[in-house]
């Protein structure tokens, strides 16, 4: 019973944290089961492939289990885990950014009409984000989804605030262009192609 996944969902969060602090494998599994799907999305947003995302997920969960003793409960457990995922993903990306540093990019023309993403399945949105250039992908995630401001992003990534802004603007334009293409496809065929 202890090892079953159902049992993990029945546990209260403090109980789950306590079990993980004691290093109990069944509790670790329960915590993993509870958050792995959501966290996989976080990792996918920062990665280019599923394999890469799974590597990040694995590394980050190991950090979660090793660092849960230090979790003071100031924030929600999910927020804390998400932060570890993002930091781990950024560490992975930093290695690549070291080779190809982020620079100011030219601003592209935004499409005239703002295209809404409502009705588009998140997996397709995920694909769009993954298809962004490296720098744009990271800055977009940090700014639009994680909610960091450009100053914080600049500090996090060791770039200038201007670079962060220009990368974000480019990301936004690229996404808008893709969304426009998708919406024209819907208009033509009436339903999503996935």
């Amino acid at each position: 019973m202890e090892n079953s996944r159902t049992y993990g969902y029945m546990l209260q969060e403090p109980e789950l944290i306590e079990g993980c602090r004691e290093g109990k494998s069944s509790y670790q599994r329960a915590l993993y089961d509870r958050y792995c799907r959501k966290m996989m999305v976080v990792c996918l947003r920062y990665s280019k492939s599923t394999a890469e995302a799974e590597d990040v997920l694995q590394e980050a969960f190991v950090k979660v289990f090793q660092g849960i003793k230090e979790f003071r409960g100031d924030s929600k457990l999910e927020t804390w885990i998400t932060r570890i995922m993002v930091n781990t993903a950024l560490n992975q990306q930093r290695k690549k950014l070291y080779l190809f540093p982020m620079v100011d990019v030219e601003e592209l023309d935004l499409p005239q009409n703002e295209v809404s993403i409502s009705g588009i399945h998140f997996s397709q949105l995920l694909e769009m984000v993954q298809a962004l250039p490296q720098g744009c992908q990271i800055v977009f995630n940090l700014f639009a989804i994680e909610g960091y401001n450009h100053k914080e992003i600049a500090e996090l990534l060791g770039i200038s605030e201007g670079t962060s802004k220009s990368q974000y603007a480019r990301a936004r334009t690229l996404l808008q262009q893709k969304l426009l293409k998708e919406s024209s496809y819907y208009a033509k065929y009436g339903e999503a192609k996935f």
Partner: protein
Amino acid sequence: MRNMERQNFEDSWKQAFREAEVPPSDNVWTNIELDLERANGSRLKKRLAIFQLLAAAAVIFSVGLGVGVYIMKSSYQSSANELAQQLAANAKLNEQLNRAKDQMVAQNHRQASPSSTTLTDLNDRTSTVNAETHTSAFPSQQTNSSRVEAVSATGAIADLEDSNDQTSLSVFGANREEVATMNGNSLMPALYENRPVKLSLPVQEKEEVDPVQLMLAKLDQREKEIAQKEEEQTKPKAKDAEKLWTSVGFAAGSFSASNAGVSDRQAPAVFQQNRSIANSEAKASGTAYTIGASIGTKLSERWVFQGGVNYLTQSSDYTANSAVLSSDAASFSPASINELQKFSASDVPAEEKLVSTMPYNVNNNLRYLSIPMQAGYMIINRNFGLQLNAGVATDVFLQNTVSAEGGNLDRTKQEIGENSPYRSVNLSGLAGTELSYRFSRKYRIALNPGLRYPMNSIYKSELAVKSNPITFDIGLRFRYIFH
């Protein structure tokens, strides 16, 4: 307006991913578990290293403590000796003082009137002449110095001053002239009651459990546990142990009998006369093939015993330049030891039947049933195995076939029996190695390079043809392990 749009854009993306879920593959959890175990393992190692350091520190501390106690004990002993020497010196001084006192008393007697009081009396009567005697300081246990002045009835004064460092006794006559002075390091024991000196060694504390020893014992026990665990891990589990197995396999190799030939004196006449035919066949080298099955068992941790049945063929080629006419004179067969044997057993002279020919190639094919029995020593007994084998094989001759290349001549076939020139049963020595790999719980594959050497000539002894072909072959065996 633009900012508003931007805000909406970001919010909509945030919203889209808020409840999104993608299941990762099952491997992720497995890898996480492995990583955690690895991390725990390294932590344990670090902890062990700390314990080892602590143990080393404890040993150093214990040794230091032991040395310290020894040194202290030695110095205490020497202090005691010094003290004893000092006491002896004091006793000597007291004696001198007593002598001085006696001298002073005598002098006092000479100088003073007969009614004068001796110093001894003075001492005795100090309490009675209280009015004339004053004590400037009373000796007591608390004070470090004392001074006693006694005045005799004649006016002579004895002044005794004692401090921790110096004790002096001065005696003055009635006119205050100094009569005698005596100094000593410690006159006190003579004038006052001797202070008892008690020497004692530090009392040994009750035996308590030494925490260092306790920790070392615990560490020792832990190490034993770990070693035992490792041993258990490295030892094949009982259910996986290889106690009995059977194997099938084949081997291929070559044999050579370069030292073979016909013995000059003992060989029958026909062999001596046709030495070249016998020599070329006996010296022929060729290929050997073996196919067979065996069964093996473990005798002990390292020793194994293997036995089995093999079908062995040895095929050699030699060149002949004569042929033998058949009894019906209708055909020829290749010249061979088989034919020479027949000649030696019959009355027909070989010359009548043997015909010289152009050199041609003859193939001699020997077949044996071999029953090997070998003892093996396992040098490595893991999934990868390395074993040394040695033993004997009983080779039962089955038949030999002599055929000429091209098929123009008849093929001669001789089976085991009196008519065969080959020894029916022979013993061969076997030696070899076995490199094996266990690829599953029940199967092991092995490569067996080995040597085979017949202990006697393969030909019957009465023929006096010596041939002990040494065979080197490499076998491949598949072993099935019984559980």
